[in-house]
């Protein structure tokens, strides 16, 4: 079996903080959020939803794949 980066499909209301709290529970929240953002540049680099959106300020889309570990080359 090839090695595959661990990932999740976010919940509808997920934020960086909620994912970090749930999936990286053993890591301090700030550190977990920073790690998630660095592992998911395809999401982090995206403009967040507009202020008048129900998802205001959140760049995470419900269809995203969110990695829970760094790229294999960095492991």
């Amino acid at each position, binding site marked *: *079996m*090839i090695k*595959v*980066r661990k*990932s999740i*499909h*976010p*919940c*509808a209301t997920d934020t960086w903080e909620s994912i970090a709290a749930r999936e990286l529970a053993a890591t301090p929240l700030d550190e977990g959020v920073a790690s998630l953002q660095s592992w998911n540049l*395809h999401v982090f680099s995206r403009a967040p*939803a507009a202020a008048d*959106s*129900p*998802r205001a300020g959140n760049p995470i*889309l*419900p*269809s*995203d*794949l969110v*990695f829970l570990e760094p*790229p*294999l080359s960095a492991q």
Partner: protein
Amino acid sequence: MDIVIRNGNIVDGSGRPAYIGDIGISAGRINQVGHVSGHGATEIDATGKTVSPGFIDPHTHFDAQLLWDGAAKPAIEHGVTTIVPGNCSLSLAPLKAADRMKLVGMFNQIEEMPLVAFEQGVTWNWETFDEFVGRIQQDLTINVAPLVGHSVLRLWVMGQAATERTATATETAEMQSLLRQCLDAGAIGLSTSFVDMDEKLQPVPSRYADHAELDALCAVLAEYNRILQVVHEFYDIDLTIGRIDQLAELSLKHKITTTLSPLFINRGDFEGVDRVIARIVEQNAAGARVWPQVQTRPIDISFSFAVPSLLFIRLRGWYRVMRFGTPATIMAAFQDETQRQQLVQEATSMMPLWSALILRQVETEANQQYVGKTLAEIAELRGTDALNAMIDLSLEESLDAHFISADMGHNDDDKVGSMLRHPHVMIGASDGGAHILSFSTYGDTGYLLGHFVRDKQLLSMEEAIKKITSDTADIWAIPDRGLLKSGYIADITIFDANTIDRGPEYYVQDVPGDGHRYVRDAIGVETVIIGGAVAYDHLQGYSDEHRGQVIGAPQR
């Protein structure tokens, strides 16, 4: 018999060795293969020619073009007899009247179909999928196996909220019901997108769907044994593998076929491509059906500054000028010293790219001397740099200077060839009818059979034909097509294996509203039969026969 094809080299689509024989056709179907003793009302001498099933193109965006051109020109001329439009979450139905301009904007942004083509080429007289099928069936020459787009399902059910949030349980159930109506009306499956942006450069509606919504829609596909197509984050290997796993999960749970496109094979990342294929093989060995689509042609992008180009999508300043400007404001930006300096500064780091661009077409006599030269060569002749040469030429040509960035990737013959013949790879992803202002999406089959089969000998003719006929028909559950076999529908392509190819790319004005597109003519394709009638002959052009069908649609 209506037609008898005599003495052709029959490559029947099964992958078995070619043989010399005849094919008899009557009432739209093949009724004899081998020796045909009776005479046909039309006799075609195929001596020295190859006779194969018509080619099936599984990834196109001919949706809009079919409204003014039921032949999807020039697809048939290249031997293609069946196309799959509606990919990447975008179809033109079901579509409420109130949402038309929203969808037109998405087609314009994502597929580069000019707005004026919709204004002048489309009579909007449908809303439901069934009505759309009825609309395109009126003058159909090519066969169409249409996907229904996830984004338009969301728009229909959720309106503005489609681009804001996940669906409620009630809305998901409504989408399921709507999908059933589309499948009943002839949709061959569902398409979705994880990457595309709309006309406001915001994510398309399908990207606001969570996995549960996609899962619910796949449950409906399972009821009909239909396929799911996705366009994924093809620029990233780990994301591609993540999507393969997601599709495998859906495939195994619902026992459906899935396909993702495109899979590009670029130098410097062969190891990544090998990981993708290894994952596909693992998942399919476990019982999933996940088919990556690999295109045959190398990536090249043509452009002029008269229209927005994909090449500039990562240069925010340039893209803004092109995307939201008019020819007059674009020229003004180039002429204004301050703006020009800003644009040049933004693009200077990509000088190797600009230097390698080739000037391919101009209008003025004075600049003809530069056609065929790289911008580096032209810059040297003019005493400037490549970037400024590009701007100067564009101004001198009133933006009608055309450049090509050739061989940008997907161009290692051995590696691409090995992928094209891989048993877990589908040949596709042509994007036919899309990106008409950036490159020609026509002629990929000619390139396959000319370049990879004849010239490079990386696939046999039998392998290649099987890939683009019966394999594609099997994967997409297209019945009675893809083989030269008694009882099958007579979709047949006759070509010269010694010459078949795609012609050079050129810019032509044949889109409604005086619009342009890049196209390639076919080389070596002689006769194309669709539904038992000659649809195209290389000497006589298109016939008046309109035997194309919407595959899966009820008889009307």
